């Protein structure tokens, strides 16, 4: 079943989707001539090859995946964009954790720079998974989400909304997986952090190598609240994440973290916005990536300090290691400051493995492949130490596996 307004109408609240689906499908798809998509392969997106998932599939998630990580306040399964299972512990329920499906409505208009893919997402998402925690509730165990995609040439449109009440504390950990078939995911996550609340949102993306994964995260951080949004991006043919971090309350703070590793012909693409629109807000962005083979990365970031953002502290850092001559990385940090009482820093680098670091380890008897593994793992460690403990070993293993298979390991070994 291909994309058409009629197929959208088969989804829940279908009649109300018709106009939006028509608009979305009539509009041109994004092109790399637009600044927002520069250097990306988006022009190669062939929507016609994919079919939207119109009915909930049976749960596809292997049990071994569900068992990962111990202790959870809730476990949610999403298959091909549909929420197929929600399990909340009695204790978390009693503490005020509620997880449900929201009624469908068009929310694409809420997004800044909304484009045809955002409209497509809104028209074809089965509905939003809504996770909310009442004020002053503190959950020590995370909410775990497993998003899985199966089948060939399926397009899925997951949508997750997290809302943490004033003074509450929550951690959400999402793992995204898929098979090796070609597939398309267009996803959206919206995080709302109430006054003096804390939210840790962590994502491990390890979908198959034929997959296109296009994600948009929007966040709203309230007065005195803290958000830590961390992404580990490993899978996909083209994996893109646009993050809009809005620090809207006085004294709000946000950490934006990413580790990514591209090999073969992968492209990892990050667009970030750190919006400081209230007094004394702080943001710290640290994105670190490694590129092997012919893989590439794009980082374009904007720190935007609005006129009423006095006392802002903002940091924006993107570092890349290139393991092969053909690997590439674009790194473009930007600042837009409309208030003088601020402290901002930004830094970006793209470089091969440091020759002196290599020589030091070699001179102590560490073989070249092992030395590069240590250096790359060490490069990621600073960021990885800010990820949930339960994800660190998994991510380290993914790094190690990529180093074992990439052309860099063969080149060094020869």
């Amino acid at each position: 079943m291909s994309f058409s307004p009629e197929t959208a109408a088969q989804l829940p609240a279908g009649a109300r989707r018709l106009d939006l689906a028509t608009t979305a499908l009539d509009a041109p798809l994004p092109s790399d001539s637009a600044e927002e998509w520069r250097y990306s392969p988006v022009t190669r997106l062939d929507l016609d090859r994919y079919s939207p998932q119109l009915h909930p599939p049976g749960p596809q998630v292997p049990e071994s995946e569900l068992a990962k990580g111990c202790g959870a306040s809730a476990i949610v399964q999403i298959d091909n964009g549909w929420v197929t299972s929600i399990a909340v512990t009695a204790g978390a329920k009693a503490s005020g954790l509620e997880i449900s499906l929201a009624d469908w409505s068009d929310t694409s208009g809420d997004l800044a720079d909304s484009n045809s893919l955002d409209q497509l997402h809104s028209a074809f998402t089965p509905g939003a998974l809504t996770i909310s925690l009442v004020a002053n509730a503190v959950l020590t165990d995370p909410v775990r989400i497993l998003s899985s995609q199966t089948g060939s040439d399926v397009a899925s449109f997951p949508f997750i909304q997290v809302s943490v009440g004033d003074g509450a504390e929550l951690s959400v950990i999402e793992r995204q997986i898929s098979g090796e078939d070609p597939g398309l995911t267009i996803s959206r996550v919206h995080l709302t952090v109430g006054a003096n609340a804390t939210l840790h949102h962590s994502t491990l993306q390890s979908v198959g190598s034929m997959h296109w994964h296009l994600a948009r995260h929007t966040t709203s951080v309230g007065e005195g609240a803290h958000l830590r949004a961390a992404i580990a991006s490993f899978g996909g043919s083209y994996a893109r994440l646009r993050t809009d971090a809005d620090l809207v309350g006085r004294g709000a703070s946000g950490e934006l973290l990413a580790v990514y590793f591209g090999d073969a012909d992968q492209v990892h693409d990050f667009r970030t916005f750190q919006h400081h629109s209230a007094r004394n807000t702080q943001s710290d962005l640290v994105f670190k990536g490694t590129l092997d083979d012919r893989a590439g990365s794009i980082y374009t970031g904007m720190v935007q300090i609005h006129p009423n953002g006095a006392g802002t502290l903002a940091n924006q850092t993107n570092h890349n290691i290139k393991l092969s001559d053909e690997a590439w990385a674009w790194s473009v940090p930007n600042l837009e400051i409309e208030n003088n009482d601020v402290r901002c820093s930004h830094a970006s680098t793209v470089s091969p493995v440091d020759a002196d670091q290599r020589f030091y380890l070699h001179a102590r008897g560490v073989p070249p492949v092992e030395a590069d593994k240590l250096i790359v793992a060490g490069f990621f460690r600073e960021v990885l130490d800010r990820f949930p403990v339960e994800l660190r070993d998994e991510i380290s293993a993914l790094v190690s596996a990529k180093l074992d298979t990439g052309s860099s390991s063969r080149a060094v070994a020869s």
Partner: protein
Amino acid sequence: MSELIITGLRASVGGTEILRGVDLTIRSGEVHAIMGPNGAGKSTLSHVLLGKPGYEVTAGSVKLDGVDLLAMETWQRAQAGLFLGMQYPTEVPGVSLLDMLNASFAANQRLSDDMVASIRHEAERIGFDEKFLQRPLNVDLSGGEKKRNETLQLGVLRPKIAILDELDSGLDVDALRMVSQRIEAATEEDNLGVLVITHYSRLLEELRPDRVHVLAKGQIVKSGGAELADELEETGYAAYGGNDEPLVDGKRSLQDGETFADMFADPLA
């Protein structure tokens, strides 16, 4: 009994010949010192012996117990028993001492069950604060702590021959004494052979050399006993083509046309 034999070693950097035929033999238990003016090729010699990229060996041989080191990669030379204590130990963010030493031992299938104990023991011997053991390699360490860290690694790795490049730079008097005593002990306990490279004789008051060699313009131009170091302390390197005036309290003043930065400049830069 090990033997490092350097014969007719010539090496270039970027087409410029720095070493012009170096002959030197170091045996287990011996301490040799190489002294010489800035730019004589002292650090180049240490780097060439370990095979640092960017140096081209144009003639000569380097053999450790009959094995041709020049045919080996850097890590293999280290595994064969060569150690380089660096003048400026490199910071390696995110990599711990334990990770590195474990990887080194694993590459040679050496047992490292007692690695942590061994590291602690060595740290204690040279007064290296245990809190530094958790730090990434050389990150946020002072100059002196870095040199202690190098010495600690020497103690754990137990090489056959150690080349110590300007070990004394950054070390205060007490630290210099502890580090020197540790190395001297290694010459007795493990029969370590040592080649110390130094500009000043300060180090050699603590670590007494069996032989002192003067390296000038890429060649060893004079060899003698420990008394040669004392003589150089008095006369400087002027007689050997160096631009150094006699050393005063282990320091020298700027020469005509030389900037402060020149004194610390990498001759290869």
